[in-house]
């Protein structure tokens, strides 16, 4: 079975590129031209099967949104393969990408910024259709009406502007836009984190219903573990541009292996604080992506770190049952004592 999406060793660097003159600095008494490069994503691999929901979780700056936008080819990846339905799209030009756009669409985080304030809803929803297919305008209008109905809006909404809608309704418009070209994969970048909880539940339910109806696969980006637990089949945990652990949902929540995953799970507040869990308190904060630590990216905050972690970068290793972990503790389990 070919995967819907297969990502191999994806890297995304950004050059902080001020003017030539601003890059001049002094080093050892000599003038020196420096390049400031941020490694937002440092070699991430995963795949998503048809109808599967893979969630990427992590804190801000971990690169999860960058992964989404690199796959959606909003960015041009620095290296790596992105195979969409078998075809590598990582290095295609924007024009060459056009035929593949209909297989993959995106839902954005901010319901206020993701819709052009000066376009009517019908034009927003129809935009991918118009760009990618040669449909006549009558057909487009019909399709827009059908899509709006699917996401719980009605036809009279088509003539309105985004600012006349609430956050949840705007997110529905964004979903209709993504659905317009019948994609197999939808990349959802924090689709509910800007919404109130009651609306969040509505959108999550809608997304699940649509998956069942259209057989969608989702790449779901979120920082909220409870949301991820609800929606995902499989979960990947990211830290500082690295994928540190992936596992099926229940396995990850029941048996997290990576210290960061455990810390994340224990830090998330719960409405049921009665359940007991091992508390791992992380000290300090995430280091700068401009200067990644040597070896393991997490070692500066890891309560278990030892000298090997500073020397050697752990690779993602298959632990069985679909779980993979990038941590030296898997070699030396005797150190894994609280």
């Amino acid at each position, binding site marked *: 079975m070919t995967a819907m999406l297969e990502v191999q060793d994806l890297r995304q660097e950004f050059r902080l590129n001020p003017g030539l*003159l*601003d890059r*001049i*600095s*002094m080093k050892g008494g000599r*003038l020196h031209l420096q390049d400031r490069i941020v490694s937002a994503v440092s070699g991430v691999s995963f795949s998503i099967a048809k109808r599967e929901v893979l969630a990427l979780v992590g804190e801000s700056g971990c690169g999860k949104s960058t992964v989404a936008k690199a796959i959606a080819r909003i960015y041009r990846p620095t290296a790596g393969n992105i195979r969409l339905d078998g075809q590598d799209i990582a290095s295609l030009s924007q024009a060459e990408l056009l035929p593949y756009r209909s297989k993959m669409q995106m839902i954005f985080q901010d319901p206020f910024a993701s819709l052009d304030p000066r376009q009517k809803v019908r034009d927003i929803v129809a935009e991918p259709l118009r760009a990618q297919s040669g449909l006549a305008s009558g057909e487009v209008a019909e399709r827009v009406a059908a899509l709006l109905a699917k996401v719980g809006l009605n036809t009279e909404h088509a003539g309105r502007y985004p600012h006349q809608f609430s956050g949840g309704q705007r997110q529905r418009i964004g979903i209709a836009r993504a659905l317009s070209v019948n994609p197999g994969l939808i990349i959802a970048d924090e689709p509910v984190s800007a919404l109130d909880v009651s609306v969040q539940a509505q959108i999550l339910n809608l997304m699940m219903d649509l998956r069942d109806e259209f057989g969608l696969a989702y790449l779901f980006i979120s920082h909220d573990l409870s949301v991820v637990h609800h929606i995902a089949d499989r979960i990947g945990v990211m830290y500082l541009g690295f994928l540190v652990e992936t596992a099926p949902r229940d396995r990850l929540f029941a048996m997290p292996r990576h210290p960061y995953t455990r810390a994340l799970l224990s830090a998330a507040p719960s409405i049921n604080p009665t359940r007991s869990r091992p508390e791992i308190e992380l000290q300090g904060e995430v280091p700068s992506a401009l200067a990644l630590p040597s070896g393991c990216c997490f070692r500066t905050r890891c309560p278990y770190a030892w000298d090997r972690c500073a020397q050697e970068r752990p690779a993602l290793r298959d632990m069985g049952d679909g779980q993979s972990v990038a941590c030296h503790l898997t070699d030396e389990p005797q150190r894994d004592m609280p």
Partner: protein
Amino acid sequence: MFAFTIRRLIQMVVVLWAVSVIVFLMMTFTGDPVFMVVPIDATQGEIDQARRILGLDRPMIVQYGIFLSGLLQGDFGLSYVFRQPAFDLILERLPATMEMVVVAMVIATVLAIPLGVYAGANPGKPLSRLIMSGSLLGVSLPGFWVGMMLIWVLAVEFRIFPSSGRGDIGTVLGVETSLATASGWHHIILPAFTLSVGTLAILLRMTRAGMMEVTRQDYMKFARAKGVSRRGVLYGHGLRNALIPVVTIFGLQLGDLIAFATITETIFAWPGMGKLLIDSIYRADRPVIVVYLMLVALIFVVINFMIDVLYTFIDPRITVK
């Protein structure tokens, strides 16, 4: 700090070089200066000879090379009109212009900042509205016309101030300036005030806008939640933040003052370099125009550099590396 200075120095040289190219090109392509030096009834032979002497028969790039090396040595050639080194002519008149610009800047700053702070801190009060309407009028006035009207009322009709010229020159701390004598002050008040009107209005409006902007910031509310009084919040927390954008404008305004000094000097017959520039433009006295432009470019570049350094003192977020 060292790298910053190097960086800025390189930038300054690049800007000055670009200015020299533009000045050279404009000068070359507009009008033939040879007719400035030859008599009206000159023969073709005399014209060609003058052309050779001035180096105008050489290829462009060579001409530019000669031009540039002249600049670097401070040799800008003789004024066609005065038959003196153009550089000396400008330099002679520089103090008079700077005197007026500095006095104008001081008048503008001393009035603008307190008024702007008041208007920004008390929006809606009648006095604030009056200040703002006045400042809007200030940016709407043609400065030269204000000067003329002042001359008409205060010099021609009431004879309180002299209508033209610079006063007696005295020496303070080894500097020769008309600001050292009573007659000097008597003469400078009108032109300096005329010059300051626009700048005064703009600085005032910027200060007020800055004040209004900071009153919306979270840290202002946080300070109030600490129990700081309204005055304390405004002046203790707001003022310095509000003045950060004003500093940028300050530099630009200094440049504007030098530019508009040309007109003010013309109206008040002030013996500064601005008036010399206008006279030279009328007479197509190219060397003088070139000196003026290059000197003013240098002044602006230095002002901008100083503003950047000043920035680092008032805004700790900007570090000079």
